[in-house]
């Protein structure tokens, strides 16, 4: 590179840095609500920097969940954009009631080394779920290699991702960015696209904020972002799947709810299976205990029932979670590697069930708090 060109690059960099620091226009609500999706993520001005590390203003609210969906170990940054002068209405079950214009923003990222998760983080994709007048609309933006822009990608793609895992082992994955139909397949509830994660029970958790720890729901209520919510101690709470101080049953039921229950739901895409893995379900057979498969094909792995109480090796659910083979693996979308920790939890849940147990399902229904 010539010295002149180098100088030009340095100058351009300085200009960009200045631009990033300058006071910025607010989030482009009209753009979010337009039928025509913006070509790049930056067009919405949800972030104040091109790299999307800094939310643009106090209406882009970071949040976290007790039990998240597993997505090939991707780290996730979640934000809710709430248009000025609007509020979220509390609901006890299902996703909270978001106003039109509300947008859920989720970035999927991989650090170079999971033992240092805050360093050298590569963004792979940012998904938006926008609440338009006609309903929720999913959009996916894929990050460029140089991490300075994310471009609309509706047809899905594969991205090669390499990282060192938490045990220090090198991993390579063929990360799957979903197409917009696949977004809808998971997010469809009773025929309409809906948010999955931000349910009261999954948001009901303590978070660390700049001024100390606070419950997420209580804080949203106090800031006037959320209306109609009870004190968090009176709201339902989903167990954290990875908290060893909580009971295995609750953790496993939370894991299955979040990873499977949007589809294995009486109003979801897999309703035809008769297998219901939501946190609300109380029927043991619907939860898989002694339940024979309907249309599993080779996904049955030669096993007779979804869950054989006490026997994870004889349970189709554990078999399918342990597979990476399309047509066998579950969930069907959004996973290309085995979630060893999630699988171990579900196996432990099945193992500790007593066979012939007629007590009914584990007592982890909504409202139960421990």
């Amino acid at each position, binding site marked *: 590179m010539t010295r002149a060109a180098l100088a030009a690059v340095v100058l351009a960099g300085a200009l960009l840095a200045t631009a990033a620091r300058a006071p910025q226009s607010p989030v482009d609500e009209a753009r979010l609500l337009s039928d025509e999706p913006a070509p790049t993520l930056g067009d919405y001005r949800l972030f104040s920097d091109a790299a999307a590390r800094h939310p643009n203003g106090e209406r882009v609210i970071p949040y976290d969940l007790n039990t998240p969906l597993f997505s090939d170990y991707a780290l996730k940054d979640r934000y809710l954009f709430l248009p000025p002068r609007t509020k979220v209405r509390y609901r006890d079950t299902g996703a909270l009631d978001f106003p039109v214009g509300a947008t859920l923003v989720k970035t999927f990222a991989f650090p170079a080394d999971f033992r240092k998760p805050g360093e050298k983080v590569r963004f792979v994709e940012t998904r938006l779920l926008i609440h338009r007048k006609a309903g929720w609309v999913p959009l996916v933006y894929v990050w460029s290699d140089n991490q300075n822009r994310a471009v609309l990608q509706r047809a899905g793609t*594969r991205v090669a991702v390499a990282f060192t895992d938490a045990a220090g082992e090198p991993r390579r994955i063929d990360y799957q960015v979903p197409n917009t139909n696949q977004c809808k397949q998971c997010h469809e509830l009773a*025929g309409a696209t809906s948010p999955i994660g931000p349910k009261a029970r999954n948001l009901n958790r303590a978070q660390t904020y700049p001024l100390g720890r606070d419950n997420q729901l209580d804080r949203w209520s106090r800031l006037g972002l959320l209306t109609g919510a009870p004190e968090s101690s009176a709201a339902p709470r989903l167990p954290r799947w990875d908290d060893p101080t909580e009971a295995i049953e609750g953790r496993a039921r939370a894991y299955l709810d979040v990873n499977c229950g949007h589809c294995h739901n009486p109003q979801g895409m897999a309703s*035809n299976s*008769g297998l219901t893995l939501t946190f609300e379900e109380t029927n043991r057979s619907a939860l898989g205990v002694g339940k*024979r498969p309907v249309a599993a094909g080779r996904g049955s792995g030669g096993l*007779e*029932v979804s869950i054989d109480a006490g026997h994870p090796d004889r349970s189709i659910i554990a078999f399918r979670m342990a597979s990476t083979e*399309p*047509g066998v693996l579950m969930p069907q979308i959004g996973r290309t590697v085995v979630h060893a920790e999630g699988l171990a939890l579900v196996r432990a849940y099945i193992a500790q069930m007593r066979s012939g147990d007629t007590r009914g399902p584990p007592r982890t229904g909504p409202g139960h708090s421990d």
Partner: protein
Amino acid sequence: MTTDRATGENLATKITSALVAVLAAGAVGAPTCAKTIEVGPGPAAQERLQTALIDAKPGDVVRIAAGRYDLVDGLSLDVSDVTVEGAGPERTVLAFDRQKGEGEGLLITSSRVLVKNIGIENPKGDGFKSNGADQISFVNLKVEWTGGPRETNGPYGLYPVNSTNVLIDRVVARGASDTGIYVGQSRNVVVENSRAEFNVAGIEIENCYNADVHDNISTRNAGGILVFDLPGLPQMGGHSTRVYRNQVVNNDTPNFAPKGNIVSKVPTGTGVLVMANRDIHVFDNAIDGNASAGVMLISYAESFDDPHYNPLPREISVHGNHLGRNGFAPTFPGGADLAKVLGGTLAPVFWDGVTAFTPPGAAAARSETVRLSIADGPVVDLNLVTQGASPLGARPTVTRALGEATLVEPAPVRLPEAQLRRAGPQ
């Protein structure tokens, strides 16, 4: 028109009909500015195909040119009023040999969709699937697992589920490790002029209301045509299926279904198998060369905890079929002994004789009035009486025919006019 000397009145009628047709098309949401999106083979076919299926607007045609498309992920359509068409099932081939993700070849989750003239090879899961669709038509398609019958093949070739007004016409399905043409939990179903071979089950109607299965060929499967009703599903209580004018012949491929699946229990060499269900009429079929049985009527034998489920086949009519040589070498447990007792061969029609079952939570078995009209025979009645009874307790009797109930044939399935118009001449 039989004359070209159209009177003014005739002309007016013609114009009115045309107007009505246009208005009707408008009423189902097809706009007048429909376009055709062309996709051809070559680099990035996956992305171009999926983009076309996402970009399509109601009324559009997505036309996939002749060629072989090597795909790594399943395709899906979620836009209503769209036609997806190829240049023919042997010419436009979607090949999933290197599939990395998704269970299906092509999944349709929208309504008033016609898929025609396309072939799918070697999907890791199902071939063509619709879920929650109304007026879904699958016409002149082929799904094949080219390695022949293998346990590792995908379960279903054609798989409409939870759908209404389903048309399957001129489809070929080969090698499915469950069922070639499977319709589950759907209403108003027509499966016609199709061919299913080298699958575990050729054609299966499961937990459906009102289905006509006619003029198909089901051969070289383990089982030819199945009509099942299973407990514990959102749509249950299957009824009103007519199985007629089919050729159900030489179903002799050893059952290769993975265990755990209900079809893994279908005896190799079964012609027509009705399990549970009511108002099933099997007539005018050619049923021949099926070693275990020509027609089997059996109850669901497993335990169940669905209080609304009835595990018995009832209101069943079997008449006017051409029954060739069937039941000559039964493959199911106890079948050979049974054949010996009956003089070396099983009767072509076979009923388990179950007329009572214990609903979940009930103290005792409840007897049902099971009305049958089996004019084709001879018929063997195993007299098992109670649901779940071991076949070892069979007390077989053979009669020329069985039951003389007057059973009303279900009305023919009528699909919406607009759907048939879109699907073209049958």
